[in-house]
């Protein structure tokens, strides 16, 4: 195959925007979580468990986790695109990244909804 430099994949805006939005979601969650946790009283396993048994907390935490996963995907893919020159290796690293993040997402859901 000829070795020409090709560009023009015509994507990137959605990911760039999602990275900003997910950053805001994570920042807001961190503040809300900090306030709720610190004002919630005795730091025991039971208070921690009751905090995360509430529906809104699970909802908010899931949003936080999903935001973090997408944010991490865009950021890690940027690192591969910046530094890894070999296309095959880059594709492999990107696939491994996606699989790892999806696995982490499933695990997070399981942790959150474990009674």
């Amino acid at each position, binding site marked *: 195959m000829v070795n020409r430099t090709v560009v*023009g994949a*015509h*994507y*990137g*805006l*959605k990911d*760039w925007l999602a990275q900003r939005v997910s950053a805001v979601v994570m920042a807001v969650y961190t503040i809300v979580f900090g306030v709720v946790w610190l004002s919630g009283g005795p730091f025991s396993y039971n208070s921690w468990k009751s905090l995360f048994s509430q529906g809104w907390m699970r909802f908010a935490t899931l949003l936080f986790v999903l935001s973090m996963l997408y944010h991490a995907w865009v950021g890690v893919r940027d690192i591969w695109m*910046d*530094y890894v020159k070999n296309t095959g290796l880059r594709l492999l690293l990107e696939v491994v990244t996606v699989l790892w993040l999806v696995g982490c997402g499933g695990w997070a859901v399981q942790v959150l909804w474990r009674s």
Partner: protein
Amino acid sequence: MQFRVFRYDPDKDDKPYMKDYEVELEPTDQMLLDALVRIKEQDDSLSLRRSCREGVCGSDAMNINGKNGLACTTKLSELKQPVELKPLPGLPVIRDLIVDMTQFFKQYHSIKPYLVNNDPPPEKERLQSPEEREELNGLYECILCACCSTSCPSFWWNPDKFVGPAGLLHAYRFLADTRDQAAAERLDNLEDPYRLFRCHSIMNCVDVCPKGLNPTEAIGKIKTMMVKRAV
């Protein structure tokens, strides 16, 4: 005054080396370029580009004590000794302080740095309101010295794919021009993970620009235009 200058002649040297110079300055020698001219009197094998000697042509961009800048607008009194001079980072060295700017200009040309307007030219000129003209300030002043692009890690890693801060500043200069009719094509051309989105807004470009321009802000405005047309 003491200087350490990057020397490399591919015809003679196996690898680059730093050479020390001690220069007697005259009271009229105010700028780094004046000192370089003195060094060249001492050792005429030193190669560098220069032309206007007043920050307009952008020929004498180099890495000065670790930071890119123009030799002709850098005051000698503000430099720590020995002054280390190296060629612009990230571009192939032709000889000494002279780099091969082909890649840089390829990226510049790729953004079509000219007005696209298919209407028949008016008798006198294509008019803009003062407010429309105002938008071009901080953009048209770029002299293409390459200080910004060669201080940008994204340009170091992907000079063949990432347009770089200088090219993107010029891209916005034409996107911002109300007389231009190719905004949609220009945005299509830039909407690419490599051409535009390699910029991670670290602002090295803003830090080094000898004309005080802000490529990061221009890149942000390109992204804003893309968001505007997409959402």
